[in-house]
C-alpha cells in the first residue's frame, strides 16, 4: 500500500485529499507546512509527496527543493492556487525546481488521481477522465 505525504496548510484541502487517496487504498500522512513535511518524510517510508506552494513558515518551492536534494527519486506533485492570481506562475517555478507534476487549484478528484496514477504506475487506480497537469 503506497504512502502519500500531503503538505498543505489548509485543513480542508488535507482532509479532501486524504479521502480521495484512502479510497484508492493509499496511506496518507499529513503535514501543515514544509518543515513538518520534511520531518515526516524522514520518519516515514513515503512514495509520493503532494505539496502546496503557498504556506506560512516554509513555502512549497523551498520544500520541494529540499526534498529533491534529500531524496532525488521521490515523486512530487505541486499544487497551488486558492484564489491567488499568480499561482500558475509559481507552479512553473515549482516544476523548474523539481516537481514532477503540477496541479492548479481548484482541481477535481479525477484530475488529482490521474496525476497520482502517473507517479505511482504500479498501483491500481479508479480514474474516470484525464487530468490537466504539467
Amino acid at each position: 500500500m503506497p504512502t502519500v505525504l500531503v503538505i498543505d496548510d489548509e485543513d480542508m484541502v488535507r482532509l479532501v485529499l486524504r479521502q480521495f487517496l484512502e479510497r484508492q487504498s493509499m496511506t496518507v500522512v499529513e503535514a501543515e507546512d514544509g518543515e513538518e513535511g520534511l520531518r515526516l518524510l524522514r520518519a516515514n517510508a513515503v512514495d509520493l509527496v503532494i505539496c502546496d506552494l503557498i504556506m506560512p513558515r516554509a513555502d512549497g518551492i523551498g520544500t520541494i527543493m529540499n526534498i529533491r536534494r534529500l531524496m532525488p527519486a521521490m515523486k512530487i506533485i505541486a499544487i497551488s492556487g486558492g484564489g491567488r492570481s499568480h499561482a500558475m506562475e509559481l507552479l512553473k517555478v515549482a516544476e523548474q525546481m523539481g516537481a514532477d507534476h503540477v496541479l492548479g487549484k481548484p482541481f477535481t478528484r479525477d484530475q488529482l488521481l490521474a496525476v497520482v496514477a502517473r507517479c505511482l504506475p504500479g498501483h491500481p487506480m479508479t480514474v474516470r477522465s484525464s487530468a490537466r497537469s504539467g
Partner: protein
Amino acid sequence: MPVVSLGEKLRNWFVEEEPAAPSNPARRETAVAADIERMQAFERRLKVLLTQPQLLSAGRIHMLNFDTLRERLGPAWSELRDRVHSAADRIINRHISDRDVQFRSGDGEYIIVFAALSRSAASLVCAKIAEELYRLFVGDPKLADITVATAVGAVDGKLLFEHASVAELLSAVEQTAVPAGPTAQAADPPAASTASIGTSAAGGPEEQRKLNLSALEMAQIGIMYRPLWDVGRQVISTYMCTPVRRFPDGTSVEGMLALSAIADPQQLAKIDIDTLADTVEILDELFRNKFRLMVSVPVCFETLAARRSRQDFLAICQSVPDYLRPFLIFEFLHFPTGVPSGRMGELVNEVRPFCRWTFLRVECRQQSFASLSGTGLTGLTTMITSDRSMEARLMEDMNSFVAAAERANLKTCIVGITSTSLAVAARAAGTTLIAGDRIGRAEEIPQHMLRFGWQDLFLRESVR
C-alpha cells in the same frame, strides 16, 4: 458657553493638592506658610500662563473634564479615582511635548496648555487622551459623550471655555482639518488631520510620542537604499530610499520608525528635500557611469500640504535633469486615509512631470482603494511586519490588499518581506514589487539593475 472662575479654579487646585496637616503646631505653621508662598507663586505663574492673549487666541489652553466617566463609573468612582488620575497623568504626558504644561484642576479635571499646537490639533490631542482614558475604564467610549473644552477668552480673571464633543471635533476634522504641528496654520487646508481618533494614518505608530528634533538629532537621520524586486520581470530594477536613524549607542531604526519621533512638518520637509536632492545627485553620478536603475523617493503629506515646503520641494524637482526623470519614482507617505480624490489628484499632478511613477504608502489591511482610481497614482506601497507565527494571516492580508488595489487599477509594492514563504505568497497574490531583508538589505548606495529570478532567491537561501 460656561464661565469658569480662574480664582475658584486655583483655590480648588490647592484644596486638592494640600497635604495632610502635620500634628506638631509649630511645624504645621511653617508648613502652612510654605504652602501659602507656594500657592501664591503658583497662582502668579498660572495667571500669567492662562491669560496670555496669544495662548487664548491660538486656542492652546484646554480643559479635560471626566464628568461623564465619573457618571458612568457611578459608585466605583471613589474607589477608582486615584487610578483614573494616575492613568490620566500617564496618558496626558505621553501625548504632550516637553514644552506643554498640564495641571490637575479638580476631581477628574485637567488643564493642558500647549506650547505650539494649533487649536484644532490641540483639541484632537485632548480628544485622543480622553478617548484612551475612557476606553481604559469603561471599554468602548461614546465619542458624543466625551467633551473637550477650549479656553477662548478671559474676562475679569475668568476663563471662558467653549465645549465640543469628540464626535463634533472629528466631524469638523473631516470637513476642514489641519495637520497637527506647529506650522499647521501655515498649511493649505488638507483633507484630514494627521491626528485622529480610533484610526491612524499609514506609516507610523500613532502611540509614539512625537517631538521636534534638535539639530544634533536631525543629523542622526540619513538615507539608505533598499532593493525592490520586480517579480514579474524577474529583475531588481528599483531602489527605495529608506530613512535610517542612527543613535549614539550604535543602534538604529529604519523606515517610518526613523521618522516617527518627528512632529514638526518643517523638519519632515527638510528631510524630504535633502533626500530628493541627495538622491538625484547620486542617480546622476550613477547614470554618467552607465548604471541604469530606478529610485523611489519618499515625500510626506506634510511637505506637500504646506505651500512653502511644497514650493521648496518642487524647486528641487524642477532641477532634476530630463534624462533622470524616467528613473525617479515618488512615494507619498503619511497621507491620511480620508484625503479626497480631487486633492490627491492635485498633489499627484504637482510631482507627476518629474517622475516615472507615483506610489502611495497605505495600510495593508485597507480594503478599498476605489477613491484613488483616476487620481494619477501608479500604485500602492504597504509595509508588513511579521514574525513567522503571523505569516498565515499576513498572506491573507496581502491577498486582499492586492486584489483591492487591482480593482482600482493600481500596482502594488509590498515592503517587509523577510522570508521566502512571504515572497512566494506575495507573488501568488499578484504583487509586482517586493522589498525586504529576504530580497536585500538597505545599502548606502543603490546598485545597477540586476537579473534576479526565483532560482536566485531559492539558491541564495539554500547556501545560507
